[in-house]
């Protein structure tokens, strides 16, 4: 079982977390502008990296928040975690934060 460093709660057991796959996959700006191949790429194609991989986790039985992590997919070692939308926290106006 991996010990996952939740950026909000600290290190917790892996079975408290839900996995969210590759991080930073942006929703297309204009989905209607995409052809079938590009839409398929968005829906079904994700990096499947052997090595350092940026991915999302959610601390389901803790703070319930999503965060990004960089983990090695062979050693399973966590190299870095960062809160989602940290930039937005300081720059957003009230009511327009990352979780609204």
């Amino acid at each position, binding site marked *: 079982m991996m010990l996952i460093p939740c950026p909000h709660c600290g290190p917790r057991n892996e*079975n408290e977390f*839900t996995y969210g796959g590759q991080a930073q996959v942006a929703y297309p700006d204009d989905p209607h502008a995409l052809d079938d*191949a590009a839409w*398929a790429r968005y829906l079904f194609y994700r990096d499947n990296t*052997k090595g350092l991989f940026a991915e999302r986790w959610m601390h389901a039985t803790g703070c319930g928040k999503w965060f990004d992590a960089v983990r090695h997919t062979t050693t399973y070692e966590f190299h870095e975690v960062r809160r989602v939308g940290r930039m937005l926290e300081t720059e957003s106006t009230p009511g327009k934060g990352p979780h609204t």
Partner: protein
Amino acid sequence: MAEQLPEHPEFLWENSEPKSSYDVVIVGGGGHGLATAYYLAAHHGITNVAVLERGWLAGGNMARNTAIIRSNYLWDESAHLYERSLSMWEQLPEELDYDFLFSQRGVLNLAHTLGDVRESVRRVEANRLNGVDAEWLTPEEVKEVCPILNIGEDIRYPVMGATYQPRAGIAKHDHVAWALARRAAELGVDLIQNCEVTGFLKDGERVVGVETSRGRIHAGKVGLCAAGHSSMVAELAGLPLPIQSHPLQALVSELFEPVHPTVVMSNHVHVYVSQAHKGELVMGAGIDQYVGYGQRGAFHIIEEQMAAAVELFPIFARAHVLRTWGGVVDTTFDASPIISKTPIDQLYVNCGWGTGGFKGTPAAGYTFAHTIAHDEPHPLNAPFSLERFETGFLIDEHGAAAVAH
């Protein structure tokens, strides 16, 4: 002294040196790669074939699966493919002249909720329409097939019935690989171990060979059978695949007298169990949720699997786990394999079998060899194309088969 040593055993195949050129190069010497080479040689007369294996033959998922063979899939496309596979399993021991202990002891897929029951009965009817042997059994009938199962109503997930496929079973996976390797080698296929593909030779949008750790090899056609590492190999050719690789674990107990006469699977509680010919109880779990290439998974997955197994089979409570291991499985988003041409000419891909590739070994080899030989898919694998992710014609076996194979 040396002359007193026993004779070396008879080797089943030659360890070939790579030649500079082949008609077809298969990347990956697991069950699917060996089966593809065998069918290329046996059915299509293409014998100038090399199987390149990074490690040793059948040392990946072919040596790590729980050896279950069945064809009770929900959708027509899957049922046709896996049923062909099952009927080929029934022929293969004779065809390959090798008794790999194919044992048609049946498989029970347990239902624990009303939702399970409805899905199961639907699948039984769908199976029958597709010529797959299938029955719906009540808990009492389940108990007759597998007396050690706990069908009491006072457990967390009581058994509300099961689907039963009598023709399903298990086989000894390493012997299957050896049988295929021996016959492929006899037909002229070069089996080349310790040979890692490090790049592809291209002529425009056409693959013309591979770079390997043992030198450059020209090829008329290249077929990928790299399972959990398919993405890595395909990336070398500039081909993205809709695959995520996950750890999948299994375990065995110490040896016991025969107690378990069939194969029992439960998608709901994530366990599947059979008893190997030697006597070990063989159990598989679900995949670990994250992308992983470590060939190991988390212990809590094993723990949950054992808890489920002990509840279903109370007599397992005193059994000891002898060893656990993991493999790397290539999952797709619809839990169905990809056996397909690719946008790159003369490059073909067989991957995405996820947690259920062993049972598909004969059909994978048969249809992939056809696809390579004719440069077009066999009707059985035409629906399992890469394009389905663009056209939307997915073969969504998640509900019916994804958890447990």
